[in-house]
C-alpha cells in the first residue's frame, strides 16, 4: 500500500459518543490525523480522550458520525482483523500475566497465523527495539518494573508492524526521568519506523514534547484546539486552553524557537591536568583533552600542581549548537559563571552565551515573525 506522506490516515467525522447513562464522552469531533505523524490527545480527566482513541479500533462504537482509517469506515471492517492491524498500547500496559514477556510480544503475529518460532524471533527483535535486554523475554510481567512493562506494551503493539499505533497514557506509571527516556525512545522509534501515532496523555508537557500536532479536549468531550505545539503555546484558542497549557508556556515556547542564529562568544579555557593555573577576574572554562567541558574554575583561583576536577565548579546544562533556544537559555541560567556553554554535536565546547544574548535574539526573532503577514509559527 503506497501511502502519501501527509495523507489523512485517521479521520473523525462529526463523531459523538453518548454512553447509555447519558454521559456525552465525545461531542461532535471533527479531526484528521496525518500519516507518519504523532498526534496527541490531551485534556483533563474524563474529557473523552480514551473514548475517542478507542473508537479508532472499534473498542467503542460512536453514537453518530464516522471514523475512517485509511479512507475506510472502521465499521465496515471485521473488528478482530481491524484491531490486529492497529497497534494498541493500553493504559498501564495490560500485559497477559500468564504469558512470558516474549509470548506477550508475540501475541499479534501468532493471531495472524505466524509459526511460533517466527513470532518469537520477531518478538525478540522488538525487545531490542524498545531497549530491553533479551533475558527479560523469559520473565513474566509480574517480574518487571513498571517502566519495563510499559516498554513491553509498546513492543507488543509494534510486533505485527501495524501502520497505526494507539497509545493510551503509555508512560503514566513511571517517574519523570524514566518517562523522559521513554518519550525520547518513542520519538526515535517514530522517526525510524514511520508510524502514525495517536497518543493520549493528560500531561501537557508530555503532549508538547512528543506531539507534532496536539488536540486539547475540554470537559464534555469538546475539542478546544487542534494545533502544532508552538501555535498552542503562543496562541491558545481560548481561556480554557491558556489555562490548561499553564504558566510556563512562555518558557516552553522557547523549545520551538530555532537557535540557528545564535553566535556563541569566545571564552578563556584551561585543560584539566595543566599545572600552575591561575585565573584572573574571569571564570575559566575547563576542558578535557578532547575539548569537552568539565566545569568552571572560579576567578582569582590559584592552583598549585596539576588542575584536577576537585578545583572546578560543576557546570550547568549544555546547549548544543543549532538546537532550539530553550536549551541556550537554560544553559546560561544554570551555569555558575552566568555564561552557558555551547557545544557542537560531538559534545566539544565551541563558545558561551549569556541569558541576555538569548533574549535579544528572541526579541529579534519575534520582530521578524510579526513582520510576516501570516504570523508564521
Amino acid at each position, binding site marked *: 500500500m503506497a501511502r502519501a506522506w501527509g495523507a489523512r490516515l485517521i479521520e473523525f467525522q462529526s463523531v459523538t459518543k453518548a454512553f447509555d447513562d447519558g454521559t456525552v464522552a465525545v461531542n461532535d469531533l471533527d479531526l484528521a490525523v496525518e500519516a507518519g505523524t504523532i498526534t496527541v490527545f490531551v485534556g483533563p480527566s474524563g474529557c473523552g480522550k480514551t473514548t475517542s482513541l478507542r473508537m479508532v479500533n472499534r*473498542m467503542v462504537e460512536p453514537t453518530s458520525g464516522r471514523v475512517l482509517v485509511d479512507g475506510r469506515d472502521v465499521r465496515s471492517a471485521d473488528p*478482530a482483523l*481491524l*484491531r*490486529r*492491524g492497529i497497534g*494498541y498500547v*493500553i*493504559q*498501564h500496559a*495490560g*500485559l*497477559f*500475566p*500468564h*504469558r512470558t514477556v516474549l509470548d506477550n510480544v508475540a*501475541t499479534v503475529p501468532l*493471531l495472524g497465523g505466524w509459526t511460533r518460532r517466527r513470532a518469537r524471533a520477531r518478538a525478540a527483535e522488538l525487545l531490542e527495539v524498545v531497549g*530491553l*535486554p533479551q533475558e527479560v523475554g523469559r*520473565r513474566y510481567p*509480574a*517480574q518487571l*518494573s513498571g*517502566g*519495563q512493562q510499559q516498554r513491553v506494551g509498546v513492543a*507488543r503493539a509494534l510486533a505485527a508492524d501495524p501502520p497505526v499505533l494507539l497509545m493510551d497514557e503509555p508512560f503514566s506509571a*513511571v517517574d519523570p*526521568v*524514566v518517562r*523522559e*527516556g521513554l518519550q525520547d525512545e518513542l520519538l526515535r522509534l517514530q522517526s525510524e519506523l514511520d508510524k502514525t501515532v495517536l497518543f493520549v496523555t493528560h500531561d501537557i508537557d508530555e503532549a508538547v514534547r512528543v506531539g507534532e500536532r496536539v488536540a486539547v479536549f475540554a470537559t464534555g468531550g469538546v475539542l478546544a484546539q487542534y494545533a502544532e505545539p508552538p501555535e498552542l503555546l503562543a496562541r491558545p484558542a481560548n481561556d480554557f486552553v491558556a489555562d490548561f497549557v499553564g504558566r510556563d508556556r512562555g518558557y516552553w515556547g522557547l523549545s520551538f524557537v530555532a537557535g540557528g542564529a545564535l553566535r*556563541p*562568544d*569566545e571564552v578563556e*579555557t*584551561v585543560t584539566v591536568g595543566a599545572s600552575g*593555573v591561575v585565573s584572573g577576574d574571569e571564570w575559566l*572554562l575547563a*576542558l578535557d583533552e*578532547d*575539548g*569537552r567541558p*568539565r*566545569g568552571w574554575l572560579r576567578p582569582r583561583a590559584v592552583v598549585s600542581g596539576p588542575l584536577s576536577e576537585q578545583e572546578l565548579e*560543576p*557546570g*550547568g*546544562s*549544555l546547549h548544543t549548537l543549532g538546537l532550539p533556544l530553550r536549551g541556550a537559555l537554560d544553559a546560561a541560567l544554570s551555569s555558575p559563571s552566568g555564561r552557558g556553554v555551547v*557545544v*557542537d*554535536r*560531538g*559534545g*566539544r*565546547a*565551541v*563558545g*558561551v552565551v549569556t541569558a541576555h544574548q538569548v533574549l535579544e535574539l528572541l526579541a529579534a526573532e519575534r520582530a521578524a515573525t510579526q513582520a510576516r503577514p501570516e504570523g508564521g509559527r
Partner: protein
Amino acid sequence: MIQQLIEWLADPAHWRGPDGIPTRLLEHLYYCLVAAGFATLVALPAGLFVGHTGRGGTLLVGAGNALRALPTLGLVTFLYLVVGGTQTATLIGLVVLAVPPILAGAYSGVQQVDRRVVDAAVGVGMTRWQRLWQVEVPNAMPLILGGIRNAVLQVVATAAVAAYVGLGGLGRYVLDGIRAVDYPKVLAGALLVALLAILLDVVLSGVQWLVVPAGLRTAGVGDEGRRRPRRSARREVRGETTDTGGGRVDGRAGHGLRKR
C-alpha cells in the same frame, strides 16, 4: 480402639473378596470419578460461558445455592424412588452435589480476570473464542481447579451414601459396621474415606501445579524475581544528562575558544 483399628486393617481377610478393601475402594473411587466427571462436563462450560459473557450471573448463583441446599441423602432416596435404578440415583445425587462448586469456580474464575487484561485481549484483536481460551481460561485456572478440588472432596465424603441404597463403596464398612456394632470396621471405613480424599487432593494439586501457568504462581514468581538481578531496571534511569561533567560523544574541535 486404635489397636483394634490397626488389627482390623491388618487382617488379610479384609483385603480380599467382594467386601475387601481394594474392591470397596475402587467402587468408591468409581462413583466419585464418574460423578465429578459428569459434574465437570455440565458445570464447567456453563460457568465459563456465564463468566465470559457476564450474562445470567445472578441466575447461576441462585441456582447454585439452591442445589447446595439440597440434602444429598434425601435427594438420593427420592431419586431412588422416582428413577428406580440405584446406581443412577446415587450418581445423579453426587453430580448434583459436585456441580455448584465447579460452577462457582469456573464462573468466578473467569469473572475475576483483571478487566484490563481482558480489554487487552480484545484490543490486540482476539476473537471471543480466542479470548476465552487464550486469556480467560488460563488466568481462571487456579479458581477453576479450586472448584474441582472442592467438588471432589465433597463427593468423596458423600459417596458413602451409596451404601444406604444398597450399593458398594467405603460407605459399606461404616453402615455395616454400625449395624453389626463393629466399631473398628466403622472407624476403618471413615479412615479410608479420609485417606482417599487426601490422596485425590494431592493428585489434583499436582495437576493444578502442572496446568496453572507459571506466570500466575505468584510465590514462584517472587522467588525467581529475587534470584535474578534486575539489571535492566537500572538502565532506564540513565536519561539524557547534559551537565558539563558528562560530555560523551566524539566530534570536531570548536571555534571561539582561546587556549590559556
